[in-house]
């Protein structure tokens, strides 16, 4: 495996020469390998979006070094190639939609890559299909519902098919089925195309699907572990304001009555399976 994103001793603030407690990022040392699927959790204002903007040179460190495929993000001549390597889906899709016709909007990045028209056409079809918005290809993105805009913003980056996709809360405005389908697409991009995924989210259930979770707190990375180990640390999750999913709360309540369900049960299906297994054991003993 080889390293795609490499950050060492990174500090960041918008205005230079402020006092030390003004750092929005502090002592970030991070390396993400090609093909990884990483989720980032953290409270509002903890620095998730600020960190993500360092991955494609939208922001550059005040101190320390960020390299993408070995390219230093501070070097002006690297920026174009870095942005083609790392695609970013922003928190608010309005910041991302540019053309007045959806299919042009989605074609924007592949056109900039200088791909042949046939290939562009195929990618646009595929990307719109992946977010279930093919019917809207000739509409204008500015007259869509909130969730539809979010889907178009996702399609725009999918069509670019970069080596790495950063998604900043891509499902915040989607209904449950829309969220599930975006997550399926993310998995497919990761496993089929080997695209590196960085997913910023406030939904623990979504983060649980990654291979690795980073937790941010006041500008620092305070945890960097696989989901199972993160979710078994309830107290810490609570302290860091990340909350506990309802299913986990139910599990905890049942445990208090001596029903010994596994601690890291996170989905309804797994919870039901575990309860049934316990019931069988329980009644078997009588």
């Amino acid at each position: 495996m080889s390293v795609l994103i490499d950050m060492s001793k990174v500090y960041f603030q918008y205005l230079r020469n402020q006092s030390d407690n003004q750092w929005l990022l502090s002592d970030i040392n991070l390396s993400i390998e090609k093909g990884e699927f990483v989720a980032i959790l953290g409270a509002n204002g903890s620095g998730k979006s600020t960190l993500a903007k360092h991955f494609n040179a939208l922001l550059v460190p005040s101190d320390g070094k960020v390299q993408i495929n070995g390219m230093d993000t501070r070097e002006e001549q690297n920026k174009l190639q870095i942005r083609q390597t790392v695609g970013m889906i922003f928190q608010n899709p309005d910041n991302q939609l540019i053309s007045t016709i959806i299919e042009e909007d989605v074609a924007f990045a592949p056109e900039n890559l200088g791909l042949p028209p046939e290939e562009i056409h195929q990618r646009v079809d595929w990307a719109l299909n992946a977010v279930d918005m093919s019917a809207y290809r000739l509409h204008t993105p500015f007259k869509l519902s909130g969730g539809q805009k979010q889907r178009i913003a996702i399609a725009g980056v999918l069509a670019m098919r970069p080596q790495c996709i950063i998604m900043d809360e891509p499902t915040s405005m989607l209904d449950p089925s829309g969220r599930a389908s975006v997550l399926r697409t993310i998995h497919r991009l990761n496993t089929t195309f080997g695209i590196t995924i960085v997913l910023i989210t406030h939904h623990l259930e979504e983060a649980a699907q990654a291979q690795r979770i980073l937790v941010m707190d006041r500008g620092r990375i305070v945890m960097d572990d696989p989901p199972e180990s993160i979710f078994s640390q309830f107290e810490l999750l609570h302290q860091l304001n990340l909350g506990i999913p309802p299913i986990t709360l139910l599990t905890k309540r049942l445990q208090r009555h001596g029903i010994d369900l596994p601690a890291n049960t996170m989905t309804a299906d797994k919870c039901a399976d575990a309860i049934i297994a316990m019931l069988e054991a329980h009644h078997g003993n009588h």
Partner: protein
Amino acid sequence: MAIIELKHVHYAYGVGTSFEKQALNNISFSVDPGDFLAIVGHTGSGKSTLIRHLNGLLRPDSGQVFIHGKDLWSQMKDRRSVRFQIGLVFQYPETQLFEDTVGKDIAFGPKNMGLNEQEVKQRVQEALAFVGLDASYLERNPFRLSGGEMRRVAIAGVLAMRPSVLVLDEPTAGLDFDGRALILQQLEQFRIKSGAAIILVTHNMDDIAEHAQRVIVLHEGRMVLSGTTASVFSEADILKQCGLDVPQITRVLIKLKERGLPVRTDAITLEAAEREILKLFREGG
């Protein structure tokens, strides 16, 4: 008397163009003081379009909107004042912020209502605390905040007007766990103290289960379900067809029932679900 009543509201975008879209189809419902109503529906089902009708931002093609019993479009001269009574928090908070400091942004509504300086100041402080931000934010530029911080400021701005109906479009999207819990709790407090009605548009079924009294389900511009929260969540199949879901807790019970276990599937709170599951262990299979 109902604060808001909609009767047979229809609305289409782009009438006469090739993009014509019937966004609302025969919508009728009413909201009383103290109600906590949730509006749900898949992406593009018409939720944001619907709530824009509640304070006169959009005018129905046909049908009527009554505010305190008066027809908004034929009996009310001062439609602008409706915006102070019926406060709307938009889906993307950035679209709502425009002043150069957070303090001025939150003060905008109360100032326009003609309140004196002292009162405005007090309301700004109250609203800021309500959304969990400290006074250090007052002098900050609202466009240089994190996504969740911006949303909190947008909510504070509407709250400072102390409207009699507070309509929020996905207010908890982008908020962290504490922020979500805080805002929902505060809304509940505000409702109880002031007797205001709350209308919440959200995709988060768990939030609805915990807070809403009634739920309206939209599907392709039509109201397909409307009733108490428990009764709406007992329609798991219809919800699924609409791209929606039941709360996660309820899903566990539905799974158990599918496997032949004798549980009720209308439990939507942790307590109720716990009770149902414990019964299984006591009763014996």
